[in-house]
């Protein structure tokens, strides 16, 4: 890759890495895995840097790589193992403001959704991707994105309502 392209990529990676990590976290519920997925996605972007339409397709392609990386993690057996460390520790610690608990409720509610619904709701309502971009990222039609997002939102509200009621 030319030095100018590398400089452009470095700038892009620096700007995107946090955003991608947060998106991945909402989809997988684990900050370490989210960071790995964000790195994997950026490496994939680097590999196709000259072939990507950088004016329109860069953001979508980065998200597509991210979703693929997160889904790939589920397929790796060692990734399916959940250690009872950080997440459970966060919950066990007293949180006077209740912010951490609220965050965890949302992440747990997201985790209860099927992966494709979770991806739809995160891409549409957190990453601000359009209907068409989300469809392209997930490789499904816009109708599929609409229906999956709708079902995901309904289920998410239901889960969060239940959580709030049980927390009272």
């Amino acid at each position, binding site marked *: 890759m030319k030095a100018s392209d590398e400089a452009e990529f470095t700038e892009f990676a620096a700007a995107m890495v946090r955003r991608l990590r947060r998106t991945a*976290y909402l989809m997988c519920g684990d900050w370490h895995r989210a960071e790995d997925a964000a790195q994997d996605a950026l490496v994939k972007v680097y590999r196709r840097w000259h072939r990507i339409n950088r004016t329109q397709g860069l953001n979508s392609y980065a998200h597509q790589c991210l979703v693929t990386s997160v889904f790939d993690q589920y397929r790796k057996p060692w990734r399916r193992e959940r250690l009872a460390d950080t997440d459970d520790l966060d919950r066990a610690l007293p949180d006077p403001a209740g912010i951490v608990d609220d965050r965890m409720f949302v992440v747990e509610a997201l985790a209860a959704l099927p992966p494709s619904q979770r991806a739809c709701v995160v891409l549409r309502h957190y990453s601000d991707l359009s209907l068409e971009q989300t469809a392209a990222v997930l490789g499904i039609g816009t109708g599929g994105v609409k229906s999956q997002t709708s079902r995901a939102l309904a289920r998410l509200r239901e889960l969060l309502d239940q959580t709030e009621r049980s927390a009272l």
Partner: protein
Amino acid sequence: MNNDIEHLLATAADDTDRPLKTDVDDLLVRARRSVRRTRIAAASTAVLTTATIIGGVAVWSGGVPNTAQPAGGPTNTVAIDPDTGKPIAPPPPVSPVSDREVIGRCMAKETEFNRAMHRDPASVAGGPLTFKWTVAVKSSDAHVLEAILVAPGSGVADVCYINSTPGSPSWSGQRPRLTQPPASGTVYRAGYIQGVRVPSEVTKVLVDVPGEPQVRQARMGADGFYTLGVTPSRGPGSPPAPKTKPRIRGYAADGRKVLDRVLPFIVHGMPPVPQR
């Protein structure tokens, strides 16, 4: 309508208390390494594929040496001779004896003979055999080696026959002079089914022996020589050899018939017909 969800998602993804461990420079190094690995893998795959193809071709054509065997390799399908309607038997197998060993064996026998007969090697047409001679065609079995060796300059051939059958070993070495064969070929050795030298444009020779149910295909050598295999030694008590006048046909590479003649002499003894 979905602002509440968007707010909740944004809050859940808040990473202010989660410092980023990713260093962009390290990421760049990792990405470069990934690209390098892909290129190396692609290059290795290309090399392996090429090697596999070359290896496959080598295995497929194994057993067909590159000396004295220009055309007419064996095939798995039964070909029918359109002239006679008979099936064509495959050419005889390739002799596993190397050209250098063939020359060496023939040289040793000739030297032995010259010494026993007090013959001056220089007095023989073409002079003594040396490793500068080339093997035009060869065939062998467990005991018999037959070869035509051509002198440098191609003016003289040495028809070398070594029979090492226990109890009845024999050797013969004839030195026919070679001239450019006409379209009908040149008989350089009368009484032998492979004693005709065909024009150089002939790449396939078919021999039809009267009474045989198939047509024999010769294995072509260099300089217009061909072989139908080793004629087995005829020891005492062997049944009498059929006495026939075979028909020989020669075809050019484009399929054109160049030569078609019945041998003007009776052939004594015939090599066995190779089995498919």
